[in-house]
């Protein structure tokens, strides 16, 4: 911890440096590859609405579920120093509940959709509560605690609706997953913005950020300052539950069907990755939600780039892994410190040279 002069270490540029650089690199790479890659157009969808289209829209839209989950995951990571690996399975449950309620009525009105969302939200929060209790009260490692739901979550989702892939056909549901008539921006993107605002308000009108960080950094000290660490941890899981439910419902609404085996499949790893790329310590403590959100978009940009490059099916994951390894290594403390030292070294040199110049002049 040699931040004494603190001026030119990479850390002082902020924890958003790495994800922002990553996005910038991906953008530049794509522009070189295809100058039109980021053009945005207006097209008419099959309902005749004018909607925005283009790769940027695909990226921002496609990353919605990931971004929302990453926000919740950031909070859990900060408070508990561990990650919830059951978000994908829990989202499948939430999505199944959403569909179950939608299909239980005769028709689907706005009220049914709200009711369905609330039900799915409550169920997801209950499962969050379950995970949170294991972590906060029984002090089980988060990854181990959530392994239980990770293992059985999709089976539970199966029990809710039975097998196959139940579908819902409704213009309202379609509106949530795709476009609301008259609004050219994809609805999931709007939901992400709303969620981000909600988090912002949450942190503004409560002391949750300070308490969460305190618990994450030094649980013992937090306790002796009167913070109920158990409650904070539990709360983080419940909030993640809300995020899970929102993501699950978006996922279902996109296509109007729930496939318990594939809904948000493998998203837990991408979510954790988004948190890490966002410069948040996976060991808990200080956090930045914006970092995680950018992290989510980095991952999505990468995916869409690979699709656009038509990288063959079997190679996609390998390419993704290479880029991610690079990102994580560059963001590691060791490289950060070396880079910081190198910059301050350059800086000193420049000062010397200019001092010399001044003398001579």
């Amino acid at each position, binding site marked *: *911890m*040699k*931040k*004494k002069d*603190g001026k030119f270490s990479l850390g002082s540029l902020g924890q958003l440096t790495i994800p922002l650089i990553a996005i910038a690199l991906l953008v530049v790479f794509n522009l070189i590859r295809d100058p039109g890659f980021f053009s945005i157009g207006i097209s008419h969808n099959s309902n005749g609405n004018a909607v925005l289209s283009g790769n940027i829209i695909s990226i921002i839209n496609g990353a919605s579920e990931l971004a929302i989950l990453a926000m919740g995951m950031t909070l859990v990571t900060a408070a508990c120093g561990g990650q919830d690996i059951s978000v994908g399975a829990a989202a499948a449950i939430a999505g199944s509940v959403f569909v179950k309620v939608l299909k239980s009525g005769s028709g689907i009105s706005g009220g049914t959709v709200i009711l369905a969302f609330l039900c799915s939200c409550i169920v997801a929060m209950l499962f969050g509560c379950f995970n949170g209790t294991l972590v906060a009260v029984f002090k089980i490692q988060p990854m181990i605690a959530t392994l239980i739901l990770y293992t059985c979550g999709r089976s539970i989702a199966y029990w809710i609706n039975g097998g196959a892939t139940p579908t819902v056909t409704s213009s309202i549901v379609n509106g949530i997953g795709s476009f609301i008539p008259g609004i050219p921006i994809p609805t999931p993107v709007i939901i992400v913005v709303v969620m981000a605002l909600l988090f912002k308000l949450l942190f*503004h*009108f*409560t*002391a*949750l950020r*300070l*308490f969460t*960080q*305190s618990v994450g*950094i*030094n649980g*013992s*000290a*937090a*306790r*002796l*300052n*009167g*913070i*109920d660490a158990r409650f904070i941890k539990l709360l983080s899981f419940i909030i993640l539950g809300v995020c899970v439910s929102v993501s699950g419902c978006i996922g279902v609404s996109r296509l109007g069907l729930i496939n318990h085996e594939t809904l948000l499949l493998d998203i837990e790893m991408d979510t954790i990755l988004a948190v890490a790329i966002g410069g948040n310590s996976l060991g808990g*403590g*200080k956090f930045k939600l914006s970092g995680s959100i950018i992290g989510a978009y980095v991952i999505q940009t990468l995916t869409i780039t690979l699709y656009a490059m038509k990288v063959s099916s079997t190679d996609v994951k390998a390419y993704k892994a290479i880029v991610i390894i690079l990102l994580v290594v560059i963001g590691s403390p060791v490289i950060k410190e070396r880079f910081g030292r190198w910059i301050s070294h350059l800086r000193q040199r420049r000062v010397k040279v200019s001092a010399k110049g001044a003398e001579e002049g």
Partner: protein
Amino acid sequence: MHEYLLTMRGIEKRFPGVLALNGVDFTLRSGEIHALMGENGAGKSTLIKVLTGVYQMDGGEIRLEGTPMVIRSPQDAQNKGISTVYQEITLCPNLTVAENIYIGRGKHPWVRQRDLEKRADEILSRLGIPARSTQLLGSCSLAVQQMVAIARAVDMNCKVLILDEPTSSLDDKEVKRLFDLMRDLKSKDVGIIFVTHFLDQVYEVSDRITVLRNGELVGEYLTEELPQIQLVSKMIGKELEELSNLGETEEKEIGKKEVFYEAKGLASSDALPFDFSIRKGEVNGFTGLLGSGRSESVRAIFGADKVTGGAVKIGGKPVKILRPVDAMKHGIGYLAEDRKRDGIIAELSVRENIILALQVMNGMFKPISRNESEAFADEYIKVLNIKTASRETPVGSLSGGNQQKVILARWLLTHPDYLILDEPTRGIDVGTKLEIQKLVLKLAEEGVSVTFISSEVEEMLRTCSRLIVMRDRHVVGELTGKDLNQTQVMKTIAGGEA
């Protein structure tokens, strides 16, 4: 044979912005026990680290038996005959004693286990260490473990043995046994450097004392020619007069004030039942040896451990204090003994650390605004003279004394009626110690009750008007008025005629 075993001349060591050692001399003769004394930050540990190759010195010269030498690494120091036994035992508890003595030195991996054990037993019996070579190290007492560490050093033919705070976790009997061993080694011409903060032990075992202060040499003295009070004054320097003035300002009229806090039979998972009360504006202290239960008792008052019984009244009204937050709501603040573990939130800023307790009392839904919190932080950084680059600096990067001030600020900001300070002066520089003691007295004047605990009895005598003495987790005495002196405290602790 050279006159001096080890000479260090004009040792200099610089850290960014600090001159940690400024031309320090140190001389060690063979067959002597030489105490290295100084307050925290005086440069003791830096000097030791230069000698053992952990740090490279920036200037000066080290000679061993008259030969100049450069010590490149701890391994190098060991090879040259300079061995260190640290405060925390750095051996492996799940290996046997013999393995611990020979581990990492295996130039001959084919040596048979049994031969090693035989050799280990020889050394152990020669040094009179009560352990068998085949025993697991973890099954030995801490003292014996420490002795095994010494045996390891002796077996490496060390000429200079450095004992860094070896007695801090030992009881009296164990200390005595360790001293016997030290004397034995002394008779075998080993030079021992003894670093400790226990003055009595220095006088019991050492032949010579070297005192450092602020990175400079104060002087080298024969132990028998240096009275204890002189030693203290040399360690803390010109501050002594100021120190002695502190106590005199205190008026003993607290007896008339009303009782703020009263507990009967208070007990927790870690503390046996005890009675305790404190008046408004009173400063009292808990004293006793380590493990006597003094910290556990004040933790029970604050609800830091699981409270298992007792009746508590605050301002005459019965209250229940089961968790820290209960205590805080009744105006009690608690500065924990272990600053790193229980105090600071290292990665958060000075500002966030300062407002933490107040925020908890305000509750989750009434966050202190950014502007407000900045104002609070600036105010207390100024009032307590906290040395920090800015209020947004992570508190973990401040020095120990300044970290302690941040935590003090945190509790002062809650405007407590009763402040419990457990070892607020541990591990911080003399200047800050003084400031904290002054602050305690000032708070008391303003009507705040304070419980002040320090392992330095002197400090407590200066600040407290009443001392509660504990032994073996029981309160064994309460000293006030003319009984408040070192001798009486020692007697009470020792269980003499109190």
